């Protein structure tokens, strides 16, 4: 008999378990099912840097949070409404985020004395009444899974136990009325080489689904209606996938072969892995011996006329600095992607932060200006990558593109772009000459120097890290020339054409919230909350950090107060205060977590 269906506008679910429990896979699959049902959504995978921390331990807990709704949403949600905890450690580390009255789904089989002890519980929370404030669904997930799979041939008890995440997925799929076809075909494809494992996972998934239907532990089913998003065809996408495809698009739009030099580093490695798949687009990926070789090879490829790219995170970016400085003085195109993570040093490799802004702006010797832009959402990484390449190629300069661990792994529905509608990137190499070539004679408009690639007859020339005489490019120690060249390099970057800053203004607002990069979602969500509460506030989100949009000073000065929320100790804040002499204030947190909309709303309220 069908159970009653309760309507909800939005739900936040967090899956939490051991890092070996398959929580990222479970969350990812549930996200796919949710996307196919037409909800708007945002996800936040939150996992430790350790691949398999000791089972049952607190540091080994891996989480995946998904927010889905029947309307346009911007964040993975401040706190979960539903927590699925696969063991006591997962309960212990995540319960504090669950709202009182929230739903709690626990695998009771995992609450052994041993596991309770590992998680630091003195008594069993299933028995001591400490969970009385929550809607508790205590389900023996492991034993139900193992029991269901005992008839599946060729599956060991250990393998059967490992399918418990699929039982949980099945149960959640029933609870929110999801179609099961996409997961069924996913499992069949993923385990195609081991049919018995495919059968076991399918059976676990279906058993979980039917358990929801029949068990008295669940009395209602929930429904979240499809969201009304702009019309079109959608898929879900992570920031790193979008960024990779944006780079491929830039290669196609410019007609240049893409060369990626990279060294594996969290959270940027998946860009290298994604681009390595796309040899059909002429993409060459070079896994270098180190970060320095990665950027060096990319610069060498650029010298030869390719679209040279290197991707990394903070600790690798630091190592690349000297080569980026070389690219500044060689005035060759180069895109350097920094997927920021919490620092200093190794810091917290899987956790987001925005603390590399001043590093990429200033972290080189000498006067060494580099344009910097930042992506704002996972899907925006696609467009930001194209923009970075466009500027690098047009102005013959290295360009820093900032992303972060939150954008890299987070997903959102993505309106699939029409490639034919993207604007081509015009690139012209210098043509064969008669030998009187001036490698540093600039285009009067862009100040870009000619890109004369080897193989071009008559344009043989030498460039290097030593200061160059204006126009000829010959080595020069002339004092006035160095001053001139320093100014020209600065003017070129300052003169890059970037769009005017748009403001999400509200009539009567005298407070402006100024944000940048990966905090767009939570900051805009916080602003909407403040407005919903009847207060007035404006929001401007920066894409270009260097150069700033020409109208930024006017924008800032047209408000009485400016609040700059950042996942650092006030880096953009320092820049705008110094540059525009506005008395902006910061809201700064470095917890390794993205902002919550609620804290942004509170911070705005505090300055209203």
């Amino acid at each position, binding site marked *: 008999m069908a159970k009653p269906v309760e309507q909800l506008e939005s739900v936040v679910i967090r899956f939490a378990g051991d890092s070996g429990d398959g929580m990222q896979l479970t969350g990812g699959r549930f996200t796919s099912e949710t996307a196919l049902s037409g909800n708007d959504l945002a996800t936040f995978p939150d996992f430790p840097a350790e691949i398999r921390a000791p089972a049952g331990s607190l540091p080994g807990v891996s989480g995946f949070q998904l927010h889905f709704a029947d309307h346009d949403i911007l964040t993975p949600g401040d706190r979960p409404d539903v927590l699925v905890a696969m063991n006591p450690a997962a309960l212990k580390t995540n319960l504090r985020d669950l709202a009182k009255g929230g739903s709690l789904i626990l695998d009771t089989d995992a609450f052994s004395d041993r596991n309770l002890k590992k998680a630091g519980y003195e008594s069993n929370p299933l028995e001591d009444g400490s969970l009385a404030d929550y809607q508790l669904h205590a389900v023996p997930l492991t034993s139900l899974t193992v029991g269901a799979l005992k008839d599946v041939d060729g599956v060991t008890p250990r393998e059967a136990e490992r399918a418990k995440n699929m039982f949980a997925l099945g149960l959640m799929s029933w609870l929110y009325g999801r179609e099961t076809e996409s997961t069924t075909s996913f499992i069949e494809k993923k385990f195609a080489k081991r049919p018995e494992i495919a059968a076991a996972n399918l059976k676990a998934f279906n058993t979980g689904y039917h358990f929801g239907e029949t068990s008295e532990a669940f009395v209602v089913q929930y429904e979240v209606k499809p969201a009304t998003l702009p019309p079109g065809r959608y898929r879900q996408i992570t920031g790193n996938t979008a960024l990779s495809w944006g780079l491929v698009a830039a290669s196609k739009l410019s007609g240049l072969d893409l060369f990626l030099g990279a060294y594996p580093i969290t959270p940027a490695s998946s860009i290298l892995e994604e681009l390595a798949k796309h040899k059909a687009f002429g993409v060459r990926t070079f896994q270098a011996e180190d970060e320095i070789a990665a950027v060096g090879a990319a610069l*060498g*490829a*650029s010298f030869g006329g390719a679209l040279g790219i290197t991707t990394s995170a903070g600790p690798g970016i630091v190592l690349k600095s*000297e080569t980026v400085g070389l690219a500044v003085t060689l005035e060759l195109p180069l895109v350097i992607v920094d997927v920021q993570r919490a620092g200093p040093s190794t810091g917290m490799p899987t956790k987001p932060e925005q603390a590399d802004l001043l590093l990429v702006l200033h972290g080189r010797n000498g006067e060494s200006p580099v344009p910097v832009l930042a992506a704002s959402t996972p899907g925006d990484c696609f467009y930001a990558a194209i923009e970075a390449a466009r500027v690098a190629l047009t102005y013959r300069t290295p360009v820093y593109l900032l992303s972060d661990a939150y954008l890299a792994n987070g997903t959102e529905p993505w309106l699939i772009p029409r490639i034919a509608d993207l604007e081509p990137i015009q690139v012209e190499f210098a043509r064969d000459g008669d030998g009187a070539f001036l490698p540093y004679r600039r285009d009067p408009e862009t100040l870009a120097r000619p890109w004369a690639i080897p193989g071009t007859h008559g344009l043989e020339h*030498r460039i290097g890290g030593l200061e160059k005489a204006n126009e000829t490019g010959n080595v020069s120690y002339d004092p006035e020339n160095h001053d001139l060249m320093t100014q020209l390099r600065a003017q070129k970057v300052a003169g890059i054409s970037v769009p005017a800053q748009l403001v999400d203004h509200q009539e009567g607002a005298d407070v402006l919230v100024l944000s940048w990069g990966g905090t767009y979602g939570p900051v805009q969500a916080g602003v909407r909350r403040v407005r919903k509460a009847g207060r007035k506030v404006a929001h401007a989100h920066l894409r270009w950090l260097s150069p700033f949009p020409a109208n930024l000073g006017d924008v800032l000065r047209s408000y009485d107060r400016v609040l700059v929320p950042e996942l650092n100790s006030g880096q953009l804040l320092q820049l705008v205060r110094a540059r525009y002499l506005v008395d902006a204030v910061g809201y700064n947190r470095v917890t390794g977590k993205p902002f919550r909309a609620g804290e942004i709303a509170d911070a705005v309220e505090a300055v209203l």
Partner: protein
Amino acid sequence: MSELKLSMKDFKSDQEVRWCPGCGDYAILAAVQSFMPELGIARENIVFISGIGCAARFPYYMQTYGMHSIHGRAPAIATGLAVSRPDLSVWVVTGDGDALSIGGNHLIHALRRNVNVKILLFNNRIYGLTKGQYSPTSGQGKVTGSTPVGSVDYPFNPLALALGAGATFVARALDVDKPGLTDVLRRAAAHRGAALVEVFQNCNIYNDGEFDYIREQKDARTYLEQGQPFAATGIVHDEADFATAFALAQLTWEKDGVLPLGVFRDVDRASYDQLVQTQLDDAAAGGDLQALVSSGDTWSIG
């Protein structure tokens, strides 16, 4: 290709050469410039890339494409160029500090990958441009500005290092020995893949006389010949045999009274760019970007 008639002067750039008078680099530059026309390669298809150090000024003096880059990184930069532009003849000019100290990692990896670059390692066993500190090839006990009572470091043997890194072409020449150097350059240029050529180069300011035993005594220059026993060592040379090359690379003037010049190793192995190109060719060309962005689970709204 139309017939090229280039001469040594076609490879001289308009820049004034600024090494110290008497530096061994002049002889190497002259040998390279006079050998280049032999290649029959148009100047625009030749690129010299260097790092930092006295040797690294070399590209400025060649009328080809060139890049004077940063300390130790020339093999990495050259790798990116060589793999994305297999049509070019790419040369790296480096020194013992540049190649074996700050850039040691890039050197061994370029060799192991068999990147199609010709690496000329000018070994003067001293840091010249920074005014005379000991280098990774300076002998133990070397007294320099940074080692006032003698270096305690054990030096690198560049050829043994290159062989250990899997180099497919390894050779040694002497700055002032134009015929010997030219022979080696010729062989290196003909080798498809990574070639390491160590050139003993005299720094007459900070380490003068380091190689006088063969610089001053022409008859002491002993050349390797394929299939022939080397000097009185009894080692029959075989460029294709690793153990032979390695054994020959261990010989020193001090210990053995004879030092091999010429080609130690030369074996055929697919070069890095060729292997990369094969993978590109195997992928169905002409990727469809619209299909890529539309792939996976999709749904429609409106």
